[in-house]
């Protein structure tokens, strides 16, 4: 049976009861992994509290951080400081320079672009080529498609159609996530897959974007964050202490 992941469940961290109900809902809808965005300065208590809620709801929890840097240098600084603290790193690209830097940096997992200002969506051929050589994937959130109405939704769908075609041409992985801030915008994985047909993503690719791609990302990062990891392809298999 296919396992599904929602890597961007924006639960309100200040309201534990609402957070709990959203996590339970995700589990009911058929997700086995949720990524919850945290502040870069999130405390261990906050993380362990969320981990406990997720374990009670029988859903795996991945820590996530969203960066919105203004310059490439700011992005590099944030990655240097916080990369090893989180399992998923997402970069919301507001400028072209940041987008290019994020696409070529192997520490970035997800590339996010604005859904309201389409002029600052920089996912073009050059961006896709850089992303295809690194490890980042294009993240598409579906809550804005539910929230937007009339012409703004039409424009977003049209842009997404173009970006999905570019990503497929350059073999950039696509990750579909909810981006839901409340239960009203949460849907089951197969419903999200059906929604992606609105921008011509085939159902099989959509299901991969909800299951295979996010799991590969999280498992790769968990390996990297484990104390046994040395370098790509090298990890400690056992150790012996001397007398």
């Amino acid at each position, binding site marked *: 049976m296919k396992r599904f992941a929602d890597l961007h469940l924006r639960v309100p961290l200040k309201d534990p009861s609402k957070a709990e109900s959203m996590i339970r809902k995700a589990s009911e809808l058929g997700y086995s992994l949720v990524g919850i965005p945290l502040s870069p300065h999130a405390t261990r208590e906050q993380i362990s509290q969320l981990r406990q809620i997720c374990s009670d709801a029988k859903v795996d929890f991945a820590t996530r951080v969203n960066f919105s840097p203004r310059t490439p240098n700011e992005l590099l600084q944030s990655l240097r400081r916080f990369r090893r603290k989180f399992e998923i790193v997402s970069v919301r690209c507001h400028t072209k320079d940041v987008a290019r830097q994020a696409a070529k940096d192997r520490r970035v997992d997800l590339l996010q672009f604005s859904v309201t200002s389409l002029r600052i969506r920089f996912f073009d051929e050059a961006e896709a080529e850089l992303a295809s050589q690194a490890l980042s994937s294009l993240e598409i959130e579906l809550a804005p498609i539910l929230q937007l109405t009339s012409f703004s939704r039409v424009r977003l769908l049209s842009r997404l159609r173009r970006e999905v075609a570019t990503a497929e041409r350059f073999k950039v992985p696509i990750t579909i996530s909810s981006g839901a801030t409340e239960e009203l915008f949460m849907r089951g994985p*197969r419903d999200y897959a059906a929604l992606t047909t*609105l921008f011509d993503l085939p159902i099989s690719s959509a299901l991969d974007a909800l299951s295979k791609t996010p799991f590969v990302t999280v498992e790769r990062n968990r390996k990297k964050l484990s104390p046994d990891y040395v370098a790509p392809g090298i990890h400690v298999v056992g150790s012996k202490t001397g007398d």
Partner: protein
Amino acid sequence: MIKREKKRYLALKVVSEQPLNEQTVLDAIQASVHRLFGEYGASQANLKTIKYIPEKRQFVIRCSHRMLEKVRAAIASTIEVNGEKATIHVLGVSGTLKALSKKT
């Protein structure tokens, strides 16, 4: 010879604060199909309510199998029914009512 059109049955669950009747839910789905795919798409969808279980807030609707993913997309994009916030989840899809009742 005219080929018989295949159908798909969808079991739906409506989540809303107030109970909603079957016609309002079907109207909301129809409106959503119309909004996303226009009159041509709505005419191809061939939507019909089959069963309504008010105590569980569950519905069974029928649509053309060619339009299944589009109808599903329209159902998923519904966030309002009759002016009230509501979500419609698809519990299962099948080609026969018997198989659908086993699934849900």
